[in-house]
């Protein structure tokens, strides 16, 4: 297991380098200039060039990239141009909020995704299967930002039951697991959960249908095992795949959703990226993307390890 873990860690190095190159390249290819947040729009070109020199943006790209990589290796993601705050502190504050939102969304998504998937797969071609399948297709198909706005219109604007924006009455710095804060979490978490719910449900349905068609199921029935017992075996067989899908989806959610977090003004990584993009805050943009990419890589690693731990077949291979 440790050898496997070591190998997987080594594999992450080229991925991280690739991500760094791509994210650095992309933010520099984008039009506009990186000093938009520190210069008023009517600043002259002359002043802009002076500031470009002061911030080191006049240096060749490769030099800027190497400097950025060197600092990042030492844990220094730089300083936000717009705010002067450390990128690392900005990103980790946002990550904390996105973690909260994505874990809740994951829980909702997987609970209902597994429920719909197992039920639909177990009772395939029945009305229950059709209803569960329709729900999962809706989950995959509906644009989540649209759903977010609809939920806001219904539950915030019309019914006035839940707040439409923010992380709590005092912001995320004051977050506590009480109703005043949890109610801020409900709409964004539900909105964020629909895609993983749909994907998990569809995957599990197909998987359960496949497992049920395998020879060991009639054999178990022939042995006189109850339907509940057979269901238990199906769940065990489906677990590694479910876990892999869950890991990937959790990775996507941890990346934060720019659209959902912007619609709900949720102060997570998506909201941060949105601000960084509009302010052309290159250090913040690069730092955030890098941290999120590393998160994704780390999460895949964790999922692989868990899969290996719970599935003896993978261990043997």
């Amino acid at each position: 297991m440790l050898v496997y873990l070591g190998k997987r860690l080594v594999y992450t190095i080229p991925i991280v380098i690739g991500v760094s190159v791509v994210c650095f390249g992309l933010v520099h290819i984008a039009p506009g200039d990186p000093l938009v947040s520190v210069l008023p729009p009517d600043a002259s070109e002359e002043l802009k060039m002076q500031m470009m020199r002061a911030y080191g943006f006049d240096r060749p790209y490769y030099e800027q990239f190497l400097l950025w990589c060197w600092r990042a290796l030492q844990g220094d993601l730089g300083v936000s141009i717009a705010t002067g705050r450390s990128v690392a502190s900005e990103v980790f504050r946002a990550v904390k909020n996105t973690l909260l939102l994505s874990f809740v969304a994951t829980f909702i998504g997987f609970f209902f995704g597994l429920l719909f998937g197992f039920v639909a797969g177990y009772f395939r071609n029945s009305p229950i299967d059709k209803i569960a399948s329709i729900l999962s297709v809706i989950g995959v198909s509906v644009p989540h930002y649209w759903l977010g706005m609809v939920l806001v219109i219904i539950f915030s604007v019309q019914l006035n039951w839940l707040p439409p924006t923010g992380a709590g009455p005092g912001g995320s710095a004051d977050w506590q697991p009480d109703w005043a804060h949890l109610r801020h979490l409900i709409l964004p978490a539900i909105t964020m959960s629909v895609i993983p719910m749909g994907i998990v449900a569809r995957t599990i349905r197909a998987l359960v249908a496949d497992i049920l068609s395998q020879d060991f199921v009639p054999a178990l029935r022939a042995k006189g095992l109850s339907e509940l017992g057979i269901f238990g075996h199906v769940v065990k067989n489906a677990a590694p795949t479910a876990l892999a899908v869950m890991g990937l989806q959790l990775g996507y959610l941890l990346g934060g959703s720019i659209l959902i977090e912007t619609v709900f003004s949720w102060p997570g990584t998506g909201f941060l990226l949105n601000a960084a993009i509009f302010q052309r805050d290159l250090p913040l943009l690069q730092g955030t993307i890098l941290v999120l990419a590393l998160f994704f890589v780390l999460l895949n690693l964790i999922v692989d390890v868990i899969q290996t731990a719970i599935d003896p077949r993978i261990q043997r291979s």
Partner: protein
Amino acid sequence: MRSFDRRQVLAGGLAATTVSFLDLSQVSAQGSGVLRIAMTASDIPLPNGQTDQGAEGMRFVGFNVFDSLILWDLTRADTPGGLIPGLATSWRVDPADPTRWTFVLRPGVTFHDGSAFDAAAVLWNFDKILKADSPQHDPRQAGQGRTRIPSVKSYRALDPMTVEFVSNTPNALFPYEISWILMSSPAQWEKVGRNWDSFIRSPSGTGPWKVDRYTPRERLELVPNASYWNPARRPKLDRVVLVPMPEPNARTAALLSGQVDWIEAPATDALQQLRARGMQITSNVYPHNWTWHFSRVEGSPWNDIRIRKAANLAVDRAGMVELLGGMMLPAKGMVPPSSPWFGKPSFDVKTDVPAALRLMAEAGYSPARPLTVKAIISPSGSGQMQPLVMNELIQQNLGEIGIKVEFEVMDWNALVSSWRAGAKHPSSRGAHSTNSSYFSQDPFTALIRHLDGGLLPPAGTNWGYYIDPDMDARLARIRSSFDAAEQLAAIQRAHEKFVDEALFLFVAHDVAPRAMSPRVRGFIQAQNWYQDISPVTVG
């Protein structure tokens, strides 16, 4: 080889999940008389003094937490307010040497930290922007402030309450420049360790509001400065909470659900619903106009005054008003006719398609034999109103008189970059016009920066390379007129030429719509980019 027990792994994962949920902090209470404002900005404007986030930053943080030597009169809605004494009680130019300005400071003013405001503090604040080797120099504040005070050559204290400024050249608009610079507390900066990042966490100015809590990207809470030097501007509210909310639908939903009391720039298509739910919609014309800035480089079709006038006569501004739900004023020039700067131009900017067709025919074009022009536009952007639909309407209107418009669509920041670089720069891609909405609060921003032949890029922002010695003489007259009436007349003469020669495509004046709960009372929407929230109450 050690293997993981799957139960251990799952238990570990669950524990990690639980820890992330239990990151606890404290809750803030909200009392009565709290005004919660949703801004369009995506972040809290930095409470450092020379704040960021454009005019919205100056509006809500700049002029609330800090003061400048000269302030804007924001007490009236019926006419644009002028400059009024702020931290300076008076200022005058030396008649013998019009580059020397003497500012007498207001006595008895203290910063929020209790330290005294005096001439040393003024010099310290100008140094923070202009003197790169001063300990308090702040590149971010310098970036925001330096553009605003190009005339400041030097400054010195004549006594503890008097400051003398020297300008590069005689410049009667010098007070407008000085009004941009906001005063942060030198004592507080020292106290927090001579560091601007620490200063932001506990800022100190002389303004009517003090910063109580600052959560970056989420909220800024202000409480009244009960000892503010101007009793008329002492806040009536208990607290103001500023929340960044860049998405217009999110702002609208936040207001309708009672999460905030006031939103900036509500979604236009939500105005009817907001009104139906009893919300107040306030608006007023202010110095913000939406134009096409014509390129005057060689080969530009807009060098022909007949085509410029024809285009101005072709735009269906009444249709555009309807399109924007009433939230614009049809433009008659660079400033609205209600402005004292408007003057008496002879060319009436209105919709007259037959006259436009005649002018186009004179120039050799018609709908059957159209002229093709290339226009830079942006799909969105700060202050751009609704650029896509507005530009599509203009495209249709101009097409009807024989001007075929091809759009060069740029992201807003790219548009700003190309605007700075000028019409000749490759980033402007050979376009014949650019559509950047303009701040026009003072004579420099309204007229001079666009029309002065000495302000060609890269030194200035005369994007279109417009050069006319007669206009230069009129602009020079504004700068050299130290008498208020004489200066007003000079501004009017320049604006009259601006309109008479149809130097831009004048389309719309923004009216800054805001929506607020019926509980919000006492707000006067001044004809200004900045607004005063001190007289506001929440009932």
